[in-house]
């Protein structure tokens, strides 16, 4: 596998050269935060960031996406016939994605791609994307990736991984997709022993810095119905205002809604992100709602992530430890505390 070293200028130049073969998404500064945008002449990639405020899940799974289209014109021969919308699945790369966010796609994968059904849009966009990660030199106090199967330099879900060594990037190819990407990247030189050692030392040093430890070991053995009836849910949900920020920011929250939108005689069937925090999410046509109360919805979110997912997929918890929900919850609800309660 390729192991190369680039000065930071060389790397940015190499990315510019790759634009002809890939749509390249890079972190750029956007006000006080960072966000992934397509690299073009006007954008300056900024790899000096903690993490993007929003997770990069939207690059594979857009917030709103047209799935189908149709005409309602009674005179058209194909009136009311629902047709697939054209999609562009040409190669793309997300460069600088944090390992927690790449791991998140792997956590989400069994939902969209399972033996019975494949979600064509998620799957094809995921397959057409090369994930070039950037290891975390300075994790936040809210990060807990090491407790949920990841790590600041974890290679899970990545095709290549960058190590920020100060003035230079060490880059390692991890998969065939990553190798192809690096073969096409101009410049750089083969990494020597010193550079490789520097990368290893960096990774080892940072992992020790993540002090946040969350226990998930007993979740699998808990009885689902007992955890569902646990006495702590009222207290956990008490402060929640059901705003949905956690589900919106979460890289592993995948729930969606499908809606038809019509303008004149043209119609689209659209998929939008949805949230288990909203009562309409489960409201039956009859008026009955199995999760009408806030505490039921809050319980659903945590039970889904930390118990139902565990039971269904045998793939760990549905959380990559990115810490976004912890940092951004207006009511200071902390999934790490809830996890400890559930695991206790």
């Amino acid at each position, binding site marked *: 596998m390729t192991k190369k070293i680039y000065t930071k200028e060389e790397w940015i130049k190499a990315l510019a050269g790759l634009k002809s073969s890939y749509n390249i998404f890079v972190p750029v500064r956007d006000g006080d935060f960072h966000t992934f945008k397509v690299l073009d002449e006007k954008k300056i990639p900024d790899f000096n960031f903690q993490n993007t405020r929003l997770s990069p899940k939207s690059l594979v799974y857009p917030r709103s996406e047209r799935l189908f289209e149709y005409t309602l014109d009674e005179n058209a021969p194909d009136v009311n*016939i629902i047709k*697939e919308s054209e999609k562009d699945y040409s190669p793309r790369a997300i460069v600088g994605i944090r390992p927690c966010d790449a791991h998140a796609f792997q956590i989400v994968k069994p*939902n969209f791609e399972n033996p019975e059904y494949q*979600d064509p849009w998620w799957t094809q966009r995921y397959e057409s994307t090369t994930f070039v990660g950037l290891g975390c030199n300075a994790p936040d106090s809210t990060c807990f990736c090491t407790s949920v199967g990841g790590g600041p330099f974890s290679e899970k879900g990545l095709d290549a991984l960058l190590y920020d060594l100060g003035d230079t990037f060490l880059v390692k190819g991890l998969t065939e997709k990553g190798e192809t990407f690096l073969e096409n990247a101009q410049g750089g030189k083969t990494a020597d022993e010193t550079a490789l050692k520097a990368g290893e030392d960096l990774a080892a040093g940072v992992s020790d810095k993540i002090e946040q430890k969350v226990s998930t070991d007993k979740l699998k053995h808990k009885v689902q119905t007992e955890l569902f009836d646990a006495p702590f849910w009222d207290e956990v949900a008490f402060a929640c205002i059901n705003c949905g920020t956690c589900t919106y920011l979460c890289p592993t929250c995948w729930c969606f*809604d499908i809606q*038809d939108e019509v303008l004149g005689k043209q119609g689209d069937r659209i998929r939008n992100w949805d949230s288990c925090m909203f009562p309409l999410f*489960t409201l039956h046509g009859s008026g009955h709602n199995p999760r009408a109360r806030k505490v039921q919805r809050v319980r*659903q979110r945590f039970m889904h992530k930390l118990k139902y997912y565990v039971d269904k997929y045998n793939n760990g918890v549905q959380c990559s430890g990115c810490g976004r929900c912890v940092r951004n919850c207006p009511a200071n609800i902390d999934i790490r505390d809830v996890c400890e309660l559930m695991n206790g």
Partner: protein
Amino acid sequence: MEKLLENPYLPYPVRIDKIITETEDRNLKTFRFVFLNPKDEKKFSYTPGQFAELSIAGKGESPIGIASSPTEKGFVTFTVNKVGLVTTRLHNMKEGDVMGIRGPLGNWYPWEEIEGKNVVIIGGGFAFTTLRSSIIYMLHPENRSRFKDISVVYGARTPGMLLYKDELAEWEQRDDIHMHITVDGTDDPDWKYNIGFVPTITEQKITSADDAIAIVCGPPIMIKFTQPVLEKVGFPPERIILSLEMRMKCGIGMCGRCNIGHEFVCKDGPVFSLAQLKNMPPEY
């Protein structure tokens, strides 16, 4: 990457072939659909107990149980209660109109397990649709010998609210199926069947659980009061089969809203045994 062969979200185009108003309140209609592309009928190969998404351009989709039986060829039928956006639009459509069907979706009644046993079917209100599918399927000459006694308790609020009245009358005449039709109440002096709630009639008519399996489909209140009756007769939870309803969108276990615990009603259900449900959170 090569294009995937089947998009599970893409409905098959169908034409409304026939519309029957079933009930006196005109709120329940049966729609018979014919596939525009004959090949799609083969792909839409289903088993009694499954459902499909009825898909209307400009309105959306509604998950509805399949009321026809796979032994009925050339069409597929659904009986639809007028409730929301999609079903109201459907009720306003006419024969010849084109729309979509997506499916078949979900699991089905456990036919392998039911085979060779006595079958007790208990239905209430407009939840009788997949039960109608099952009865037609079992009574088919090719299938009838695979099942022992078939008993049916079916109730509605009034005689005018019963679905499939012609077929009910026909089944009443047959000697290879025991029908117990009931209504909550009626002032019709000519009503010749039972009067009483489904759990009460079940208690009177279903007296043995020997080598029998019960399929129950109806409003939550009916299920709630029928369950103890069946348990008293001797049905263990493994042999009480229920079909559930839930708000759905994708129908294929991805959109996240119809779960009960880690099971999705759309994909892992809608059919569950009472034994299964007892191990799931009571959130439905």
